[in-house]
């Protein structure tokens, strides 16, 4: 409140202040050895102000009365300097203030209350299980790394609109990498634990991950990759598992439908978007088949982007980015929603932010970051095996791997963890050196099968980068498995 008063006295028409304490625990191991036991804590305040339509922001780790006032005044000074290069003043969409609110992630066990010996012990036990297959040291053997990462963020937001909300956000990511090595052949292959995705949960997510049981399978799969057949280039029908497909959704649907990108605000780093300009694509662009529906939300249970309020006090809503295959809406903040006023009015909707504002910490300014963006399951009760059985010649891909996409989100290339050759409706063997290249609109329009609700899973990005300075966001993507016809597959195993 001190910060908000100081900002207003200095000339701000709007201000918000975020105080957050982020606790991070990172336990990392390799083989039978602990690499690191680290507890991090960072605490501070960030103040954002609007002066005559220009933004300013300043932050400090020191929460004394004098320093908080200095930071608020510094934010106003920033805004005043920025007015000199102003062409379109910022206008904020209306918000319904929340004078007193609290929200907490659905974490059952606080990871910071769990004894460190238990966490270390679990990882070393999982490593031991993997090493039964990979055996430590020596020739033609292998290696294993494992880790647990936990975040607890206690965040208080106050705005001059009258919002005051306190939220406690948890995130958890257990992970392993098994690597099999054939020293004589100069070959090595990795299997990352992509079956276990990061979640907005507590330590129970680690317990549910069954690391010790899964470790042996991951190690065996790494070994099997050494002997897998190198793929023949060509066009294949692809069957994509949810542990893989979430990343393709993230890159080719979630990022291009960020309104700041479409308007050119991220052109210097993240890029712009092929889903642009808004008036030419909203309600018109055919993104995929009619059975394709893509939902944005910040409410799925245990999802990474779940919150009660976003970082400007908006209660996020659930909306369809793609409805029946047609592009329907962008991700927005309060600053951005007014850009779409004509579209919203034509739809009989109010001009409101979707609640997609986020900053990674107190030290960073909030801006538009993606909510959970999920491909909704189909009406038929199909599962992974049904898609394989229906495919004559194709490749099934499990787990996310290498990824790269252009600055307008047209051309992408994805690898994976495991690749299986399909012939006559059956998996006939493992492949390696596989990557597929897509042009986004053709790829989604080539989707001809979609799993049902029973096969829907949440994947997630823990460190999605955007903005300058780059900030990290955590977001989940739910989806069932899908099939895509005749996708271009390359071989990545060239030697010169």
């Amino acid at each position: 409140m001190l910060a908000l008063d100081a900002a207003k006295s200095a000339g701000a028409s709007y201000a918000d202040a975020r105080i957050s304490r982020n606790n991070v625990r990172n336990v990392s191991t390799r083989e039978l050895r602990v690499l690191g036991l680290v507890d991090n804590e960072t605490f501070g305040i960030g103040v954002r102000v609007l002066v005559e339509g220009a933004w300013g922001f300043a932050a400090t780790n020191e929460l004394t009365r004098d320093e908080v006032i200095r930071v608020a005044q510094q934010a106003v000074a920033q805004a005043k300097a920025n007015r000199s290069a102003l062409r379109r003043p910022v206008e904020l969409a209306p918000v319904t203030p929340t004078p007193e609110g609290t929200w907490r992630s659905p974490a059952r066990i606080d990871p910071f209350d769990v004894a460190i010996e238990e966490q270390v012990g679990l990882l070393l036990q999982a490593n031991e299980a993997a090493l039964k297959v990979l055996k430590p040291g020596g020739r033609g053997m292998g290696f294993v790394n494992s880790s647990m990462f936990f975040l607890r963020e206690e965040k208080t937001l106050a705005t001059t609109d009258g919002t005051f909300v306190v939220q406690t956000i948890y995130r958890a990511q257990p992970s392993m990498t098994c690597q099999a090595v054939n020293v004589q052949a100069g070959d090595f292959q990795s299997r990352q634990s992509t079956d276990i995705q990061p979640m907005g949960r507590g330590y129970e997510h680690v317990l549910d991950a069954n690391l010790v049981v899964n470790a042996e399978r991951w190690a065996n799969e790494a070994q099997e990759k050494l002997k897998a057949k190198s793929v023949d280039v060509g066009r294949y029908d692809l069957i994509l598992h949810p542990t893989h497909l979430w990343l393709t959704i993230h890159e080719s649907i979630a990022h291009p439908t960020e309104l700041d990108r479409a308007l050119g605000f991220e052109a210097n780093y993240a890029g712009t978007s092929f889903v642009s300009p808004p008036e030419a694509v909203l309600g018109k662009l055919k993104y995929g088949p009619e059975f394709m529906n893509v939902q944005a939300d910040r409410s799925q249970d245990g999802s990474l982007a779940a919150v009660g309020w976003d970082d400007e006090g908006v209660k996020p809503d659930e909306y369809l980015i793609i409805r029946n295959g047609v592009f329907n809406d962008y991700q927005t903040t309060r600053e951005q929603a007014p850009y779409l006023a004509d579209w919203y009015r034509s739809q009989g909707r109010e001009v409101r932010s979707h609640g997609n504002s986020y900053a990674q910490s107190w030290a960073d300014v909030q801006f538009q970051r993606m909510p959970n963006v999920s491909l909704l399951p189909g009406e038929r009760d199909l599962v992974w095996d049904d898609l394989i059985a229906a495919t004559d010649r194709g490749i099934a891909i499990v787990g996310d791997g290498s990824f790269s996409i252009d600055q307008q989100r047209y051309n992408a290339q994805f690898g994976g963890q495991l690749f299986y050759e399909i012939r006559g409706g059956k998996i006939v063997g493992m492949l390696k050196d596989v990557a597929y290249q897509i042009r986004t609109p053709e790829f989604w329009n080539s989707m001809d099968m979609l799993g049902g609700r029973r096969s829907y899973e949440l994947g997630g990005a823990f460190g999605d980068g955007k903005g300058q300075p780059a900030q990290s966001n955590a977001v989940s993507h739910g989806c069932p498995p899908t099939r895509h016809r005749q996708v271009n597959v390359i071989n990545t195993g060239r030697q010169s």
Partner: protein
Amino acid sequence: MSGPRSLFGAAPAHLGRAQAEALCKRVLGFSTADEMRVNVSSGSTANTRFAVNQISTAGDNTNVSITVRAVFGKKAGSATTNRVDDESLRAVVKRAESLARLAPDDPEMLPELGPQTYAPAGGYDASTAALSPADRAAAVRAITDRAATAGLVSTGYLEANGGSQAVATSRGLFAWSESTAAALTTTVRTPDGTGSGWAGATSHDWSRIDPAALGARAIEKAERSRNPVAVEPGRYTVILEPTAVGNLVQLIAGAAQARAADEGRSFFSKPGGGTKIGQKVVDERVTLLSDPLDTEAYGSTFGGDGLPARKITWIQNGVVQNLAYDRWWAQQKGAEPSAFPGSLRMLGGSATLDEMIASTERGLLVTRLWYIRPVDPRTILYTGLTRDGTFLIENGRITRAVKNLRWNESPIFMLNNVEMMGAPVRVSASESGGPGQAVVVPPLKVRDFTFTSLSDAV
């Protein structure tokens, strides 16, 4: 608070040597562990973003980070705080110690280092640390005004930061250095969205960055890159501007870890066992080195454990000379350990960009590379795309703009196919437009660069 009332009341907004040393001593004084290490970093970072020819956001922050590593016997644990009052420092020491007590023995535990000798560090410029919001806004306007006048759309990012790093151990080691970094990058697009040009620069010294010149270069590239045509993907002779070379060559240093090589899981592993040290892996004209005292690319003079960083030649005349050894692995292998200096230089040649173009019958001129991600660590194979200025060269001349292309290529393969090399320059090689690590590289002409598909992205 019983600590300093304000760390950041007046510029510079970071801890000086004496302040840092006093803080480290306070922390070490709370220790009950067998050994302790304290790392302190402090400073401020300030930025201004612009988009659609106006400033979009700007901000600054000040922070300090204190990391304590406690050791009991062969057990270690670490904790970090950003508060400097005695109560918080006691608490962070206690957290590190309780983690350490509960840790299993580390078979690779080495004692903390005692006092070391460090070369005097460069790379700090007081005026860069003190760049004001108004200074930054003026630099931005040197680009946005010109772009607006030309009927173009400019977007970009300016960052300036200053800070200090310190490390102290209970065995009497103390190291401190201060550094600054500034970066300015801009992407200028044509309003019809068919052309895009980029320019960027980074230095520890803001005065070495010329905003107007960067704006002019990005504007020229945007105008020349309008209405690109498609060329067939495949293997091309390419002329890579220094930024594109930096984007790729810096990946080699990241892969040059001795331990992974000895373990058989690196490009630098020798089939059958051991590393490729002593083997020729790229063209004999290629030399890659890291020198913390490089005046164009200052790096850090010590690592997180206080180990001095020395000049390391990774590849000399095409032959692998050194890999990065931490203290433990160096001891196992009888090698000399070093901290990684965080900077990289590739030696060049005398060819100019114009001579490279004039000597090319058919090829592509590439401004920079983007969304670069690993594909196959066995060969340091990466994928990514060209971006913001890709042109066709025919019969010794740039004839027109071409659409962007996806490539799958290894900097190792590329440096085996070198045709011509120019003079090295400092580049802005980080994708995010921040200062990143200091990279100095030449422009290159190389044959058989592999493009695998077309992109419609501008």
